[in-house]
């Protein structure tokens, strides 16, 4: 068997050599034979002639011998592929159309699936035995009394406070190791040279736990996570390249975060981002970093200092047993002393895969977008596949004669089927090659658009992308050829060698079906585009409150994010210093006015919560905790917030005068349900005396679009009786700058002026509100663009397909149209007839597509702005209108041709 196979393979590889060998063999035989006769006494000439006669017909024998070799499958394949290439060269236009559309379809999908695989399937790289590493998901009830959080709902989070975390490290046979990290944005250096980095604070066991090896130097070890040890840092490969160049230059340099200087001792391998998917620049030991940021208080409970824990299951340990053990450990720790009563002692801990995306919390919006995007590109691929199948079908119909001839020559039905499958596979393979190019060019941009901060592998063409391309090529090549091959192999399709008429109707149902499917898929994408566009428009036009066009916010210092609430060694800024900075910024050209606030607009950064009670209400009536913003009197004016009722703050609202507050409209509505807010009484931070509401201001966006969160404002000048809050107001300060022209032009001069005044201050953070707003509505913009680009492609393909089918039909029926003319049909009748056919096909597509889109709408629903319905009649109507218009346009040219059919020619032919 094996020998036979080898023989066949060999015979196929070197048929030409074997031909020569056979010639040699025959020549040897003839020479031998002649020699025998010469020995018997014949002359050389006669001997040769007789030998040849005796041998028989040399050509025939050669043929018969070759037949004995047989056709090896490989050889057949080579022959078929050569045929396919010949066909493609002859129909260059058709080939280009098919290859390009399919390549776009595959090329967009390949990086998409690579991305999805990285997001949801593959564990982060460089982690040893990632299957044994588990992320912990804690579900606990939030106490209603805790810092003004108003409801007692349960939340699920992959984080623990330090005392809980410490409980995990107790000996447990089921657990091989525990590590924790906390990621935040930090500023390295001071003044104008300061840079914002993503920093991960890690427990000493972290790197050993993950089992990662450095590419240079060493990693943070257990003994480094000790305040007595020298502070060290390790950096990512990307940051090493961007900042230092070579690893040698990086090692031994220092980084400075919050007044602590860290020695860089190691570099991590490329692509490493820990157990997290988003990129990290620097890793620091937890003890040093947390203490520098929070003082010693971070260890205490209730400081909102959370750590993301990971455990490594011992070999053979089950997940259930381990999660039970972890839950028991956390509950036991909480039952002990040092924990406040408000804490949920019934908290449970569940174990999940290392990938955060596969945790129990519902997919967040930025994770949904890639999923939807993958869905969209998959539909594009479907459209491209259907388009290709349809074109192939038309090719078969047009090649009826050629196929009939081949059939008559003995190719057989199987042979014809094989020929078509080979053609389609070769087309698909060619598209696959182009697709890899498309993927290489667009893949990186695509994933950076969809998930900007993700730690992507260097190469956008990973194994998954290439594998996907291969599978797609094979699947599409086979699937697409199925209908044409079946149709062609059916004898009815090829029996009529003599006629060019009549057979054209064959295969029409399949072609029409394919067109309807194509139109339907286009409608799905079109209505998606319309729905997303409406969402995008709504989001863009949402009133953010702030007059955002010429507004710049400067968060002073580096203390956005975590703050030093306790153990503050002298606040870095006092009021006189802040006033000096404000004055300096006011002096920058093109700056119109400057205000101050503790919470900077549209970032949510610096939001503070105080204990709050409202006179006359037992409990807070809010869905989310109200946050407080301490501002200067001109804040509302500069930020462009309208006072709806009462007044804003004035210079008289200062220390010693009556305490006043301004609330936003959401606050007023939820607390007093449309009754006047002015004159109401708030009790802030447990104060006994009343803080009087003097005004209501329009809501302004901080976190969500549109904003419904309750916010109240207090004058900076009146301070707070709560030491934590007054500490907050002194370190957490943003300047709100109104500019005359483009705020972008003012950014650098403002930073320059501040650095001139206090060169030693850590980096300030400047944000341009219009840019920030654009970032806020990114999801809808990206979604709209993605949908729109895909829909355009799909509609174009549908138009091409429809045009091809209608035009083909018209060409086949030219004779019939001529006769109709001769019998008295008017040109306009024929025109209408053909247009109606195109319209009917598109209408069927619209109907099917609308049903499909209504079904698929559930997937995009969570992504739409402000809970808008994806079943928007206007959007669907628009989609239908676009497709029907395109369909009529695509059928117009063939229709005109039909209307000009020549009655005389038709009659003559009869």
């Amino acid at each position: 068997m094996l020998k036979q196979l080898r023989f066949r393979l060999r015979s196929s590889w070197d048929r030409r050599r074997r031909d020569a060998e056979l010639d040699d063999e025959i020549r040897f035989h003839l020479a031998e034979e002649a020699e025998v006769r010469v020995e018997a006494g014949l002359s050389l000439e006669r001997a040769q002639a007789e030998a040849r006669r005796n041998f028989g017909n040399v050509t025939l024998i050669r043929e018969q011998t070759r037949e004995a070799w047989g056709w090896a499958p490989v050889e057949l394949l080579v022959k078929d592929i050569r045929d396919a290439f010949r066909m493609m060269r002859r129909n260059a236009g058709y080939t280009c159309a098919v290859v390009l559309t399919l390549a776009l379809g595959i090329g967009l999908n390949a990086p998409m699936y690579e991305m999805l695989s990285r997001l949801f399937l593959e564990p982060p790289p460089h982690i040893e035995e990632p299957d044994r590493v588990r992320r912990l998901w804690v579900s606990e009830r939030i106490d209603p009394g805790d810092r003004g959080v108003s409801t007692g709902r349960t939340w699920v989070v992959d984080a623990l406070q330090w005392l809980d975390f410490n409980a995990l490290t107790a000996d447990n046979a089921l657990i091989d190791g525990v590590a924790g990290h906390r990621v935040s944005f930090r500023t390295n250096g001071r003044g104008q040279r300061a840079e914002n980095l993503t920093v991960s604070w890690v427990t000493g066991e972290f790197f050993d736990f993950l089992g990662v090896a450095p590419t240079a130097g060493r990693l943070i070890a257990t003994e480094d996570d000790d305040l007595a040890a020298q502070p060290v840092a390790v950096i990512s490969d990307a940051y090493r390249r961007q900042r230092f160049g070579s690893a040698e230059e990086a090692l031994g340099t220092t980084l400075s975060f919050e007044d602590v200087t860290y020695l860089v001792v190691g570099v991590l391998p490329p692509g490493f981002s820990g157990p997290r998917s988003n990129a990290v620049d620097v890793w620091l030991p937890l003890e040093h970093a947390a203490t520098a940021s929070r003082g010693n208080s971070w260890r205490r409970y209730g400081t909102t200092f959370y750590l993301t824990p990971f455990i490594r299951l011992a070999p053979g340990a089950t997940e259930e047993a381990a999660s039970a053990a972890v839950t028991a450990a956390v509950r036991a720790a909480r039952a002990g002393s040092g924990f406040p009563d408000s804490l949920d002692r019934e908290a449970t801990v569940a174990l999940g895969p290392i990938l955060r995306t596969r945790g129990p919390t519902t997919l967040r919006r930025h994770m949904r977008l890639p999923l939807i995007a993958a869905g969209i590109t998959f539909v594009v691929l479907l459209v491209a596949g259907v388009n290709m199948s349809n074109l192939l079908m038309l090719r078969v119909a047009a090649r009826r004669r050629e196929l009939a001839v081949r059939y008559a020559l003995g190719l057989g039905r199987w042979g014809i089927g094989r020929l078509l499958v080979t053609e389609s596979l070769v087309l698909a393979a060619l598209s696959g090659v182009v697709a890899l190019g498309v993927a290489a060019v667009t893949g990186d941009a695509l994933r950076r658009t969809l998930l900007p901060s993700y730690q992507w592998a260097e190469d956008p063409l990973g194994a998954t992308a290439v594998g996907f391309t291969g599978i797609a090529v094979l699947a599409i090549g086979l699937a697409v050829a199925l209908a044409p091959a079946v149709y062609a192999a059916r004898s009815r399709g090829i029996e009529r060698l003599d006629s060019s008429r009549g057979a054209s109707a064959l295969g029409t149902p399949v072609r029409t079906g394919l067109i309807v499917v194509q139109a339907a898929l286009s409608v799905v994408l079109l209505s998606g585009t319309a729905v997303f566009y409406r969402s995008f428009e709504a989001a863009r036009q949402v009133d953010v409150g702030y007059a955002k066009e010429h507004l710049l916010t400067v968060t002073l210092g580096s203390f956005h994010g975590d703050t030093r609430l306790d153990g503050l060694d002298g606040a870095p800024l006092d009021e006189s210093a802040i006033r000096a900075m404000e004055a300096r910024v006011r002096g920058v050209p093109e700056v119109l006015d400057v205000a101050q606030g503790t919470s900077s607009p549209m970032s949510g950064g610096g939001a503070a919560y105080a204990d709050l009670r409202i006179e006359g209400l037992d409990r807070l009536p809010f869905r989310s905790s109200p946050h407080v913003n301490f501002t200067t009197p001109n804040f509302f004016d500069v930020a462009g917030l309208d006072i709806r009722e009462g007044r804003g703050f004035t210079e008289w609202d200062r220390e010693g005068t009556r305490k006043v507050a301004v609330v936003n409209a959401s606050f007023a509505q939820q607390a007093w349900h449309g009754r006047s807010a002015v004159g109401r009484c708030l009790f802030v931070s447990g104060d006994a005396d009343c803080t009087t509401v003097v005004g209501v201001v329009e809501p302004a966006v901080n976190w969500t679009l549109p904003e419904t969160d309750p916010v109240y404002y207090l004058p900076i000048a009146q301070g707070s009786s709560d030491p934590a809050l007054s500490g907050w107001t002194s370190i957490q300060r943003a300047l709100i700058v109104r500019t005359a022209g483009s705020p972008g032009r003012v950014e650098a001069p403002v930073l320059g002026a501040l650095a001139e005044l206090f060169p030693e201050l850590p980096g300030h953070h400047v944000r341009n509100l219009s840019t920030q707003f654009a970032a806020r509505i990114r999801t809808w913009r990206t979604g709209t663009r993605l949908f729109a680009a895909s829909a355009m492609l799909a509609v174009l393909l549908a138009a091409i397909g429809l045009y091809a089918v209608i035009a083909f039909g018209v060409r086949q029926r030219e004779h019939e149209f001529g006769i109709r003319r001769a019998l008295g049909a008017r040109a306009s009748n024929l025109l209408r007839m053909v247009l109606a056919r195109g319209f009917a096909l598109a209408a069927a597509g619209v109907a099917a597509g609308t049903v499909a889109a209504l079904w698929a709408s559930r997937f995009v629903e969570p992504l739409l702005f402000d809970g808008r319905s994806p079943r928007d009649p206007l959007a669907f109507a628009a989609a239908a209108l676009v497709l029907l218009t395109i369909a009529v346009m695509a059928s117009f040219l063939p229709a005109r041709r039909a209307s000009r059919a020549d009655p005389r020619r038709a009659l003559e032919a009869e």
Partner: protein
Amino acid sequence: MTPASPRNQLLYGTLDLLILRTLVYGPAHGHAIAGHIQRVSEDALRIETGSLYPALHRLEARGWIAAKWKTSDKGKRARYYRLTRTGRRQLAVEQTRWQQLSVAVTRVLRPAD
């Protein structure tokens, strides 16, 4: 493949058997095989020597014989065929079948006792 007439089939089978039988004595090239068959059958089986080659290549494709280029006694390069192990088994099968056939034919041809 074109359907062979019964006579052809018999001839085909016979030729295969004769080739396999010949190669029992050791490797040989095509000319030698043809010569041997003629000599042994005392020229009773005169074949067009050329028709030997399709048969040889068919047997090779089936794996019953194997071929190799070697230098002949007279110093010329020739294609030598030898019997493979499967070929030897096949020979036994063919021989049995042939014997059964020839017994049957003989019985038919013998006048009734």
